[in-house]
C-alpha cells in the first residue's frame, strides 16, 4: 500500500528544488531566478569578478536600477543621493560584464524589482527566486518561493545555482470572511503584524490563505506578501489559482501555456500540517495606520494609540491614549513595492478625483512602481487627476520609501506613506512616518490630518 503524504505548497516547492543534503544535514536548494538592483548588485557582481567566479547561468539573472534612481522628469545617471551615480554606472558595467539581463534607468521595463518581475513573468508559480532585497517576499503572491537574502548569498546563488539552507518551519495565516469597504490587503498584513508582532513569523514560511485572500486580485496579493518580511518571516506565499495564471498569460518570460497538470498541483494538500496556524477574521478589520516606529506599532485608524515603548512615543510625538484621527500631517506619499501598482493608483485616483490636497501639506508625491505602470496610468489619465489634486507625478523608482541622502523633508515632518517601514529615520532624519493603505494616504492628504478613508468614500470628509 502506498502512503501518500500530504504536503504544503512550500514543501512541494522545497522538495522539487532539493538537489542534495549537505554533510551537516542542511540542503542544497536550486535557485531558478536571481534579481539584483543597483544598491547591492554591483557589490555582489564585483566581488564575484574579483574572485574569478562566473555567473553559472546568466540567462536567469536580472538586474534593474530602482533604489536610488532619480524620479524627476528627464532623469539620467545622476542621483539626488550624493555619490549615488557610481552605484548605477558600476552596476551597469558589472551586469554587462557578467552577461546578465539589465533593465536600465530609462529602459521601458525599468521599475521596482518586485513590480517588474511579475509584470514580465520572470517570477512564476513553483519557482525559487532570490534577491538581495528584503521585499523579495512580495513575489510569493504568484505562488513562487521568493525571499530576500544578503549580497554574499546572492553571489552564492549566482556562482553555484543553489543555496545552502536549513529547512524553515511552516505557518498558515487564514483570513476568514470578506473585507469591509475601504479595507485592503495593506490593512490585512498590518493587522497581522500588530497582533502577532514584528518578530511573529521568525523562522517560518507563511502561506496566506482563506476566503479574503482568494478574493484579492493578484496585485493586492503582492501587497499582502510584501510585508511578510516585516513579520520576520522567511517569506510569504499564496497558492496560484485561475487569477494567477490569467495574470501571467502572455508575459514576456512566462511559458506559452499553463495547461499542464503540473501547474494545478501547486497548492497545499487537504489535511497537510503546518507548524503553526493563525486565523484572522477579515470582516472585522478596519483601515490600519502605524502609530510608532515598528510595523507592529499599527492600529485601526479610528482607535487610540496604545502604550508602547517610551522611545517610540517620544520619536513619533504621540502619547498613549491619543487618537490618530486629526493628527496634522506634512507629507503624503504613494509609492513603493508595497502599494504602487496600477490598481493602487486607480483606487487612489478614484478617491482623489474632484478633491485637492489640504493647503497645509508641504509635499504630496506619487511615484509609480514601474515605467509600465506609469505609462498605463498616463494612458488612463490618472496622472492628470493626481496633478490636478496637488500631487507631484514622478518616474518610477523606490523614491521616498527610504532616505539615502537625497530627497527628504524638514526634521520632525510627519508623513502618511503607502510604504512598508516606519523605522526611526527611515524616510530621513527625524521624519515621523505613518504607514497605511493608498486609500488612507489620499483621505489624509485631502484632510491635512490622518483621516479615515471610509469617511471619504461615504462623502463625509470635510477638508
Amino acid at each position, binding site marked *: 500500500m502506498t502512503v501518500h503524504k500530504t504536503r504544503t505548497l512550500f514543501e512541494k516547492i522545497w522538495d522539487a528544488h532539493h538537489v542534495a543534503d549537505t554533510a551537516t544535514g542542511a540542503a542544497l536548494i536550486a535557485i531558478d531566478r536571481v534579481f539584483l538592483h543597483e544598491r547591492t548588485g554591483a557589490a555582489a557582481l564585483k566581488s564575484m569578478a574579483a574572485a574569478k567566479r562566473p555567473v553559472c547561468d546568466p540567462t536567469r539573472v536580472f538586474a534593474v536600477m530602482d533604489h536610488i534612481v532619480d524620479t524627476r522628469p528627464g532623469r539620467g545617471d545622476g542621483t539626488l543621493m*550624493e*555619490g549615488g551615480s557610481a*552605484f548605477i554606472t*558600476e552596476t551597469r558595467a558589472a551586469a554587462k560584464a557578467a552577461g546578465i539581463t539589465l533593465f536600465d534607468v530609462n529602459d521601458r521595463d525599468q521599475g521596482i524589482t518586485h513590480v517588474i518581475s511579475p509584470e514580465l513573468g520572470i517570477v512564476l508559480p513553483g519557482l525559487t527566486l532570490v534577491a538581495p532585497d*528584503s521585499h523579495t517576499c512580495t513575489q510569493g503572491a504568484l505562488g513562487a518561493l521568493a525571499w530576500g537574502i544578503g*549580497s554574499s548569498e546572492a553571489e552564492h546563488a549566482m556562482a553555484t545555482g543553489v543555496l*545552502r539552507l536549513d529547512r524553515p518551519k511552516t505557518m498558515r495565516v487564514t483570513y476568514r470572511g470578506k473585507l469591509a469597504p475601504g479595507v485592503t490587503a495593506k490593512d490585512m498584513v498590518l493587522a497581522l503584524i500588530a497582533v502577532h508582532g514584528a518578530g511573529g513569523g*521568525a523562522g517560518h514560511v507563511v502561506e496566506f490563505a482563506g476566503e479574503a485572500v482568494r478574493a484579492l486580485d493578484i496585485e493586492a496579493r503582492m501587497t499582502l506578501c510584501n510585508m511578510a518580511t516585516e513579520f520576520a518571516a522567511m517569506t510569504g506565499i499564496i497558492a496560484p489559482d485561475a487569477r494567477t495564471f490569467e495574470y501571467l498569460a502572455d508575459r514576456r518570460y512566462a511559458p506559452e501555456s499553463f495547461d499542464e497538470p503540473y501547474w494545478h498541483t501547486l497548492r497545499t494538500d487537504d489535511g497537510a500540517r503546518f507548524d503553526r496556524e493563525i486565523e484572522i477574521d477579515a470582516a472585522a478589520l478596519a483601515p490600519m495606520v502605524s502609530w510608532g516606529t515598528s510595523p*507592529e506599532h499599527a492600529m485601526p485608524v479610528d482607535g487610540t494609540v496604545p502604550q508602547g*515603548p517610551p522611545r517610540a512615543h517620544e520619536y513619533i510625538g504621540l502619547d498613549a491614549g491619543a487618537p490618530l484621527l486629526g493628527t496634522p500631517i506634512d507629507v503624503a506619499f504613494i509609492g513603493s513595492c508595497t502599494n504602487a501598482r496600477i490598481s493602487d493608483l486607480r483606487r487612489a485616483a478614484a478617491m482623489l478625483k474632484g478633491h485637492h490636497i489640504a493647503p497645509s501639506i508641504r509635499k504630496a508625491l506619487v511615484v509609480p512602481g514601474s515605467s509600465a505602470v506609469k505609462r498605463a496610468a498616463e494612458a488612463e489619465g490618472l496622472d492628470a487627476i493626481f496633478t490636478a489634486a496637488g500631487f507631484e507625478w514622478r518616474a518610477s523608482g523606490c523614491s521616498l520609501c527610504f532616505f539615502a541622502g537625497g530627497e527628504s523633508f524638514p526634521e520632525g515632518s510627519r508623513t502618511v506613506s503607502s510604504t512598508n517601514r516606519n523605522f526611526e529615520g527611515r524616510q530621513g532624519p527625524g521624519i515621523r512616518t505613518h504607514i497605511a493603505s493608498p486609500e488612507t494616504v489620499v483621505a489624509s492628504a485631502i484632510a491635512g490630518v490622518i483621516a479615515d478613508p471610509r469617511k471619504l468614500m461615504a462623502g463625509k470628509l470635510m477638508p
Partner: protein
Amino acid sequence: MTPFTTLSSRAAPLLRDNVDTDAIIPSREMKSTGRTGLADGLFAPWRYLDAAARTPDPEFALNRPEASGAQILLGGANFGCGSSREHAVWALAEYGMRCVIAPSFAPIFRANCIRNGLLPVTLPEADIAAMAWQSVTVDLPAQEVRCGDGVHRFEIEPEPREMLLEGLDAIDLTLKSLPAIEDWTSMDRKARPWVYLERTQ
C-alpha cells in the same frame, strides 16, 4: 573567513527590541559599492548627536569608555530586522564585533552574520540583560555562554555551527558539489523546461 571558536570580551548592551538594519547602518552611510569603510557609519543615527559632524553622543552604549574593545553586542528581540543590507554586518564586523546575543534575530540578518564569521547567539531576554557590561565568554564548540557563575546553553543548527567553527567559505564548499548540481540541473531541464531561458539580448 576567520574561524570562530571561543571569544571573551566585555558585552555592550543595546537592549532595544526591533533594532533595524537602517539604524545599524543608514542607507546614506553606504557610500560606495564595496564592503568596507562602513564602521564609521555604524549606528550613526544613535551614536552621533550630529551625524554630519560626527559628534559622539556620550550616552550611547558604544561611546561609553567601558565599551572600548567590546566584541560582543547584546541586543533586543528581532534584532537586525528590516532591509537585507549585508552592510549592517560588514559595519559591525569592521567596528570589531564578533558576536551578537539577542532573544531573537531577523532571518536575513542572521544568515548574513554567519556568512561573515559573526556568531548570532539566541538566549532568553533576562539572561542577556544580566550580561550588560560584564565579561562574557562565548564558547561555540560547547554551545555555551558563560558570565560570572552563569552558564547558558544556546542552540545553533549544525550547518552554521560548522561554517563558523571552520571559517568556511560557503561558495568554495558548495562548488565541491558542482557535479551533483549539474546532474540535477540536466534532469530538471527536462522536467521543468520553462525555468530555463533563452538568451534574449
